[in-house]
């Protein structure tokens, strides 16, 4: 996420805090994808991801007055999204769909090219591989790639040292790269 996006978010949040519902709707539209993707990767189920989107934005709306802008909006959003998923899981309202590692290894993608400079990745297989990551690695990767957080912001939010975020994101990437090799993303 660029600093410009971040500035725009702050402006929208400020407007929403002043009662501008349309500003809040713009925030929902701008960030629903990240929340949905996080929910989908957590539960592996579209309906559950839909519930996550509903609940996250409702929670954000309800707590608008408590947001003081000291953290980036994306950081706040990520924190709420993460907590909503964990709460839904802990309360037994949703259970993650188990992942079958075979789906990742065998899900050879059509349309692959033998030239690894033009590697193509099957989005579905990639998502399966992301779901199969260690939860803490997936969380760090999502914080950075879906929510546009810096490693430093992710470290604060996840309450771990900066170096831990670095290694989790890197471990996630290496695992994904390896998984894409298993499913024939390119030929070596």
């Amino acid at each position, binding site marked *: 996420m660029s600093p410009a996006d971040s500035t725009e978010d702050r402006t929208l949040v400020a407007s*929403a*805090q*002043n*009662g*501008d*519902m*349309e500003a809040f*709707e713009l925030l*929902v*539209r701008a960030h*629903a*994808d*990240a*929340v*949905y*993707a996080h929910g989908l*990767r957590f539960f592996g189920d579209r*309906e*559950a*991801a*839909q*519930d996550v*989107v*509903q609940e996250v*934005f*409702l929670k954000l*709306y*309800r707590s*608008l*007055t408590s947001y003081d802008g000291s953290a980036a909006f994306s950081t706040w959003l990520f924190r709420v999204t993460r907590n909503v998923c964990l709460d*839904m899981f802990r*309360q*037994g*309202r*949703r*259970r993650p769909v188990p992942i079958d590692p075979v789906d990742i290894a065998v899900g050879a993608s059509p349309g692959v090219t033998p030239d*690894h400079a033009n*590697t*193509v*990745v099957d*989005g579905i297989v*990639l*998502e399966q591989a992301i779901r199969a990551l260690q939860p803490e690695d997936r969380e760090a990767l999502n914080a*950075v*790639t*879906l929510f546009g957080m*810096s*490693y430093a912001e992710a470290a604060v939010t996840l309450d771990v040292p900066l170096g831990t975020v*670095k290694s989790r*994101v*890197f471990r996630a*990437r*290496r695992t*994904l*790269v390896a998984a*894409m*090799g298993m499913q024939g*993303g*390119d030929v*070596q």
Partner: protein
Amino acid sequence: MNPECLEAQQIVSETYDGEHVDPAAIQRARQHCTECPECSVFVSRLAAIRKTPAPSAPPRVIQNAIETIRTEVVAQAALAEEAAAATARAASAAKEDASVAPRPIPPAQQPSPRRLTQATWFAWGGWATAAAVALVLVGVLAVRGISYIAGPQEKAASDTAMITQNDSSAAPLSAAPESADDAAEASRSSASARFITVGGFVYAYTGPGARLPSNATTIGVTVSALDTGSAPQQYSVSSAGGDNFVVVTETGLYGFELVARTLRGQSYGLQSRALSGFGQWPSLPEGYAEPASDDGSPSFSRATSDDSGVAIFTPNGSDPSGGFAIAPGTSSSDPAGGNPNWTWWAPLP
């Protein structure tokens, strides 16, 4: 792995994320990746992964989220408005009660803090939150052109309260059955389904005539046609002491009680999708798929039984303390009796 490869790959990964990396280190990593086949593959695959879009929320999902928030905004406004009106009513009733000897409420009839807490939480987090959010709403409603009566919420003094069950002075109820016999005669058809939902919890109709006590506190709103047969309207729901709740309409008062059951000494309240009028049976709340078979699958598995032998189902047969489902077909004395749907019971604090 060669430490040089590891370092190069980590630098590439961090650079992709926009992290600050020493330019000289980037240069070294770039050089290494052009010469090292393994790192070259890593870079190309990483680039491909980066190009692959993450799942995006379907437009319907976004629209649903927005609609939910809009509904809440309207509900909040009604709640704030009703709270102001309730405060005014309480003040006027307190004056009235001062002239007659008040009958103190026995402790057993006083509002159950536990149940009130639960219901109130769902109704926008209680008075404090409602008041705080009202600040936002002033602006929202100004934009949307909805009339809004601002007013501080107060819980009126409880020592002047009076509850008169079946008080003949209360306005008459329109067409609702007035006795338990009537209710029994309605058998198990949808006519015997007389429920409302407040904050996701289900309240069963108990009969007309409960006078709104002077210390009534609004616990939330419901959108229901009740038994009027006309379009659903939004009503505030007030606590009338103990487990009694009252909906005041233009034609009279409707009494309700929270539908609850106990399991291992813990109380659980019935939750449901919104019910827009009498005649509708509570069903599983949003987020729970209707089981395809009697054994609860694929949504639930049988976890245990309660003291009456009613089967308790949970997702994956997990511990029921976080909530559980009941299959249709329980006896008429069961809180879920007569309901043709699966029901969900959430713990009450």
